[in-house]
């Protein structure tokens, strides 16, 4: 049974309160509209795609005549039919909407068809006659490293002299391991609906984290000004980073076909297509060498991080940068060198996924600390705590940012006590000594995650707030709702400013016509930035209302208070509606745009120095598992989490993010395995073969608490902290608990790649047994 403490959420008012998601009533009754649910105007067409069957090939012949002739088909488009730019890339112009002459991954789109029904479109798309001339394909990180196929020269982050420190250290440990990728598996697949207006106007409803990019990509593809395209998103059925850039292709196809036919066109990817066509979390190969003292303190560490980026850059550069910036996690690394290889391969272009490289970086250091503990025969928790940031001279990250909000030591100490770590560690040792087949494992790991986009210019947001003369408030901002509760949180902030109840604030769909030039809802920064922008807009309106209220109430403007849907001053009060009406009659504007840019941040990528993050979010988790050493399967027995969200804007929503993030992370590191075959085809392109956690996989005993001492040192919105991504990395404790149980079974450290599938665990145990036998065999010979 789950037990939860919501920490500091007791304050009066509308912020810091556990309020249900704004769409909860609509969700439970099926009334919430997603892109595919929007009623279709008469004449709406449906799209399907023609996809590459080869990982790398020249297109020698593309015969679409049979597609055009198929029943119900109204239009077919390929690269040559695009009136504007054939590109849907977010940063570099390297993602053609339709392949032009060459294909670079299986599942790359070659053409699209619009037909009267979904089925007609799909049947028609299969009729294309495509001939290929195969070219050499690089499919894996190892392939790419051997061919030196990189998106950019390796990035290197250095502080001190790692090689020398390792050479001088009393103990050394080196190794290499792999970390798998992850499919987003948002329940709502990629979808877009383009509706042509008069003239060249185009409205694009898109399931996207980035409406502004949808607008720009569609406008460029059509060769029309940005101002002619409006992109809108009311909500997404999950995104997790998978709709930060990946929605652009689907929106562009919808817009192109709508332009070509003059009719509304809906695009909804079939699940198998979605999984083949869209990018995933990057898989990594990690090489490491560490030098350390008797206490397990790292003297020097070198990392080699190589990731599979796929056929284009997408966001891979920033993702790998973030991986480098999280190779320290919560630990001080006095001498460190991190070399990062961004491998270009002939596979789908990998993309943002909750944590954005951070999880892979954190896995690297946590793996090393676990190895150090096993080399020294120490409890991994002791080694982790010995390496934490803290103390004089031990508070600067490898990229020269001071850690001045270090919550990890206190969080870990508190969690070790509340989770009864020491007693359970002893109990597990006893259990394992008596249990030959089932072995239990335990691990407690911290999370320190940097909050802000590392690409500094993305740290800006806009909002639009109207106050109507009946006292109701229209709220719009550049952030998008994907289930994380952003709209609810920002509405709480605005209601709080106006002293209004939440039902007076109308939440509206993100729309590029209302708030322009926005950045993606990503990097966990949605509430921080849009909350501030919306508050600024509300404050602008309030500042205009103050003189009106003061005159009406006969008090000084400074004495006016907004509370309880009323405005008070001295002994008198009036409703917010009455004040809005008075202000209108006095010709005062009741509408304002708000803007916010995150302060204090800067980063010099050429020197790998700066302050890329406004602050850090922290957490810690202790996971206990039981491993069946005959099958390699494990069960999560108990998980304790203590997580820092500052002063939570909404503890109910934050708990949902923490629990959901943890389980998603556990899936990444245990059951979710992406398999490509030797021809570059994804073998796991459906939930029948790609296994995300189900209700029955969750911890039997799940104890999640928001840290009561949490408070943001920086002036973030209501002193809260971002919560979207950080909890995913709490699940690194699950991987290390499995590794702990496996080590207990093997009687020595095991080398284990992620995800720790039953197959991998069994192989790791076999390898360890073989290694243990080797000296005996030699002696016998």
């Amino acid at each position, binding site marked *: 049974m789950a037990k939860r403490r919501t920490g500091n959420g007791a304050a009066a008012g509308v912020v810091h309160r556990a309020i249900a998601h704004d769409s909860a009533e609509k969700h439970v*009754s099926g009334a919430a509209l997603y892109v595919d649910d929007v009623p279709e105007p008469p004449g709406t067409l449906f799209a399907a795609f023609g996809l590459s069957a080869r990982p790398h090939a020249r297109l020698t012949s593309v015969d679409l005549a049979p597609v055009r002739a198929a029943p119900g088909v109204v239009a077919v488009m390929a690269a040559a039919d695009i009136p504007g730019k054939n590109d849907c890339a977010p940063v570099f112009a390297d993602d053609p909407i339709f392949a032009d002459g060459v294909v670079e991954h299986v599942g790359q789109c070659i053409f699209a068809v619009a037909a009267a029904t979904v089925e007609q479109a799909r049947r028609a798309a299969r009729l294309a006659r495509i001939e290929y001339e195969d070219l050499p394909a690089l499919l894996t990180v190892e392939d790419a490293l051997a061919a030196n196929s990189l998106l950019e020269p390796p990035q290197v982050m250095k502080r001190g002299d790692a090689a020398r420190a390792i050479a001088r250290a009393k103990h050394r440990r080196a190794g290499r391991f792999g970390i798998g990728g992850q499919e987003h598996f948002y329940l709502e697949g990629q979808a877009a609906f383009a509706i042509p207006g008069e003239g060249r106007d185009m409205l694009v409803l898109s399931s996207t984290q980035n409406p502004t990019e949808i607008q720009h990509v569609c406008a460029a593809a059509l060769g029309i000004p940005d101002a002619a395209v409006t992109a809108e998103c009311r909500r*997404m059925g999950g995104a997790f980073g998978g709709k930060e850039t990946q929605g652009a292709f689907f929106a562009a196809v919808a817009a192109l076909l709508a332009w070509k036919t003059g009719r509304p066109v809906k695009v909804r990817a079939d699940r198998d297509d979605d999984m083949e066509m869209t990018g995933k979390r990057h898989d990594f190969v990690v090489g490491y060498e560490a030098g350390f003292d008797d206490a397990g303190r790292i003297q020097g560490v070198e990392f080699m991080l190589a990731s599979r980026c796929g056929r284009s850059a997408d966001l891979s550069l920033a993702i790998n940068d973030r991986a480098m910036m999280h190779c320290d996690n919560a630990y001080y690394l006095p001498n460190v060198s991190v070399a990062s290889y961004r491998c270009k391969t002939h596979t789908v272009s990998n993309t943002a996924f909750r944590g954005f490289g951070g999880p892979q970086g954190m896995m690297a250091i946590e793996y090393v600390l676990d190895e150090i503990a096993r080399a020294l025969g120490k409890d991994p928790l002791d080694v982790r705590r010995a390496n934490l940031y803290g103390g004089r001279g031990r508070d600067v990250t490898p990229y020269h940012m001071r850690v001045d909000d270090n919550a990890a030591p206190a969080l870990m100490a508190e969690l070790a006590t509340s989770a009864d770590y020491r007693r359970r560690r002893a109990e597990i040792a006893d259990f394992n000594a008596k249990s030959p087949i089932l072995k239990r494992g335990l691990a407690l790991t911290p999370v320190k995650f940097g909050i802000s986009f590392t690409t500094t210019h993305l740290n800006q947001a806009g909002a639009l707030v109207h106050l109507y003369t009946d006292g109701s408030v229209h709220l719009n901002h550049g952030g998008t709702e994907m*289930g994380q509760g952003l709209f609810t949180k920002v509405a709480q902030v605005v209601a709080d400013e106006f002293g209004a109840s939440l039902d007076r604030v109308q939440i509206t769909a993100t729309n590029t016509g209302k708030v322009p030039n926005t950045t993606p809802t990503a990097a966990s920064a949605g509430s921080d930035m849009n909350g501030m922008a919306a508050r600024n807009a509300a404050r602008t309106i309030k500042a205009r209302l103050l003189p009106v209220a003061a005159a009406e109430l006969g008090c000084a403007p400074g004495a006016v208070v907004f509370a309880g849907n009323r405005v008070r001053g001295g002994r008198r009060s009036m409703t917010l509606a009455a004040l809005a009406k008075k202000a209108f009659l006095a010709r005062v504007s009741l509408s304002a745009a708000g803007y916010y840019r995150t302060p204090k941040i800067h980063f010099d990528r050429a020197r790998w120095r700066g302050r890329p993050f406004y602050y850090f979010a922290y957490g810690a988790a202790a996971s206990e598992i039981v491993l069946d050493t005959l099958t390699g399967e494990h069960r999560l027995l108990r998980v304790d989490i203590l997580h820092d969200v500052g002063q939570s804007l909404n503890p109910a929503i934050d708990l949902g993010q923490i629990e959901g993030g943890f389980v998603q992370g556990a899936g990444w590191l245990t059951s979710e395995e992406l398999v490509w075959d030797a021809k570059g085809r994804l073998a796991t392109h459906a939930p029948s073969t790609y296994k995300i956690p189900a209700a029955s996989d969750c911890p039997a005993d799940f104890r999640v608490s928001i840290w009561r001492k949490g408070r943001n040192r920086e002036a973030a919105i209501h002193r809260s902290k971002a919560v979207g991504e950080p909890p995913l990395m709490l699940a690194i404790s699950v991987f290390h608990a499995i590794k702990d149980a496996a080590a207990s079974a093997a009687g020595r450290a095991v080398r284990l790649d992620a995800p720790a599938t039953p197959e991998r665990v069994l192989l790791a145990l076999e390898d360890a047994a073989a290694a243990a036998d080797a000296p005996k065999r030699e002696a016998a010979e």
Partner: protein
Amino acid sequence: MIEVELAVNGERETVSVDATQTLLDVLRTKLGLTGTKIGCNQGVCGSCTVLIDGKPARSCLVLAAGCRGRAITTIEGVGTADAPSPVQQAFIEAGAVQCGYCTPGMVLAAEALLRKTKRPSVPEIREALSGNLCRCSGYTKIVDAVKLASERAAP
């Protein structure tokens, strides 16, 4: 095309369907009942769950033409935003809703469980919901919601 009379949420409607058309497709495109979601369209994720004669079924795997004379309940037949059923109310109160896309199917799976078992244990709830995938919540609050609904119904 086949003429078939469907009994959906207590109302009889005659629709003409293709022999290969799924119940999911007919509900969404012919009857405008878009609360039933398309998740994987291959019977694994549970987003398209409806009740057929009171039992949960994946409407993406059911042919509409085979539903003649069967009582079909979709999420729209369980309750409304203004008048939610006790299970729906429990989902709201427990905070069991994030992106919402799995929610209709999850609610129907829960309805079916509670019709069969008045006071299910937590492991029974987890088992009953294990065919309905949620990518957001980690399931904790969903399980809490079903427990809450069962406690209220059978105190």
